[in-house]
């Protein structure tokens, strides 16, 4: 079993569109959407939810006004500025429980957070494990870990070959939670200065955690000079470029119809994504 996580650093480079198409092309796999606070993969895969689960994580402090003597100690010790005028700002509270432990009249209790849902769904391309973090909830990294664990469990139980993970943008908590211990990171970039800057940081994260990284340049023809620079940069970093996908509005047309692009069209974009998967599987050599 191999776990492949699709990341980008910068948002909007095409992670979900490409994962949606890999879902069609790859045969023996489970899909996991680890972009839990803005999940979109379901819009391409039309899942039927088979199993919906609550995600309980973290706590929030509550002050009982009747018991509170307004001594102000809780506000004084809170490192997150979450208590003002003897009330808790639920959004700022990080659930450490410091206030509840030191309140002299035991007026503060910690309550568990229902921080979202996670789902096991069936799609026409196989099983999808996905999630929805509650609005303004924390602990996206923990929810990512739950999604990954379940995807792994199903993959092992059914004797499948791959877990394909649609990862979140950025380089922080949910990205590290999506990446740690994976077999390979497929990094989707675009030939813009922002895309290149962010690629450098996400490659840094992969190197930091010792994860093999492969790069796919999406919309490569938007700026071929930048594409060339990315290839040179990757070469110098010892990172392989496995694919160049042209810009084509057909990707958005397919999206509007709720379809992965490889199902909607057999044009250049679809052909490149099919080639990309053969390289990832080790059945074709990379571009460089």
């Amino acid at each position, binding site marked *: 079993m191999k776990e492949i996580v699709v990341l980008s650093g910068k948002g909007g480079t095409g992670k979900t569109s490409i994962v949606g198409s890999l879902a069609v092309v790859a045969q023996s796999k489970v899909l996991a959407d680890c972009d839990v*606070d*803005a999940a979109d993969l379901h819009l391409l895969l039309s899942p039927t939810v088979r199993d919906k689960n609550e995600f309980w994580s973290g706590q929030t402090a509550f002050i009982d006004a009747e018991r509170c003597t307004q001594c102000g100690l809780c506000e004084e010790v809170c490192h997150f500025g979450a208590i003002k005028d003897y009330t808790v700002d639920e959004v700022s509270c990080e659930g450490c429980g410091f206030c509840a432990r030191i309140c002299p009249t035991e007026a503060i209790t910690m309550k568990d957070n229902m921080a979202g849902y996670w789902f096991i769904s069936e799609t026409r391309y196989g099983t999808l494990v996905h999630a929805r973090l509650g609005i303004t909830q924390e602990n996206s990294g923990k929810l990512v870990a739950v999604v990954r664990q379940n995807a792994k469990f199903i993959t092992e139980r059914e004797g499948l070959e791959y877990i394909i993970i649609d990862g979140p943008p950025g380089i*922080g908590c949910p990205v590290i939670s999506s990446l740690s211990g994976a077999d390979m990171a497929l990094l989707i970039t675009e030939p*813009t200065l922002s895309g290149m800057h962010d690629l450098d940081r996400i490659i840094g*994260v992969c190197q930091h955690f010792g994860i093999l990284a492969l790069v796919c340049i999406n919309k490569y023809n*938007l*700026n071929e000079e930048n594409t060339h620079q990315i290839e040179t940069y990757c070469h110098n970093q010892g990172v392989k470029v496995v694919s160049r996908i042209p810009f084509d509005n057909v990707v958005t047309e397919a999206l509007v119809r709720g379809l992965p692009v490889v199902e909607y069209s057999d044009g250049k974009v679809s052909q490149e994504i099919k080639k990309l998967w053969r390289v990832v599987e080790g059945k074709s050599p990379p571009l460089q």
Partner: protein
Amino acid sequence: MIISVASGKGGTGKTLVATSLALSLSKNSKVQLIDCDVEEPNAHIFLKPTFTQQEIVSIPVPKIDEGRCTYCGKCAEICAYNAIAVFQKKVLVFPELCHGCGACTYLCPEHAISEEGRGLGVVETGNSNGIKFTQGKLSIGEMMAPPIIRRAKECVDPERVAIVDVPPGTSCPVVEAIKGSDFCLLVTEPTPFGLNDLVLAVGVVRKLNIPCAIVINRAGVGDKKVEEYCLSESIPILLTIPLDTRIASLYSKGITLAEGMPEWQESFLDLFDKIKGLLR
């Protein structure tokens, strides 16, 4: 006044809007741009500031004085983040899990815990053609963005119009970046992904009680559902930027719309006037 620029979905054009709005306003007003997308800060690519100050952002993590420690295990019991494990004759601290709440230090019965700073990243301040520029940057391999965002936001200059570039998503870093704004601009694209994530982002700003409006970028690319949604939710659309290869090309080279196509400056000034109108 603080205007945050957010989106839910990544890559919809937050930085494009934030930088061009800042530049257009800077001709007549005092402006500050605060890049709170600390995982992937990109505004500096467009505004090319000269940085004059750099501050390391750290959180207090526990340091155990094993001479005083009796291995009672109280610190491990109270830590909500499992950042401390106590064995018979050994205490292990996992600093990357620590949120810096300070409970263990305060509550240790032997006063055996002190705090030491653990650097998560930096906040840098500088100047770009009269625009005060502040950005947070998370270090590679670090997980916790909110403390850096919090520090960057503390640099708000009340004398200036502050424009905050928000990270994508809807979880804690986004909340930290938007919190305290007077107004939130939500940049989206007219596609099913753009709409799905816009609905989530609207949920965040409504929970925070911050007035918002929409900028549609790459108009013409997908369908009409974003407009229908805004109409049904009575959220005003203040600016529409078309799908245009010239704009995409400028963006790819790190050139702002306000500089590359100066005729857009008028539209950004108009956008600002409309925001002021909505706040009145």
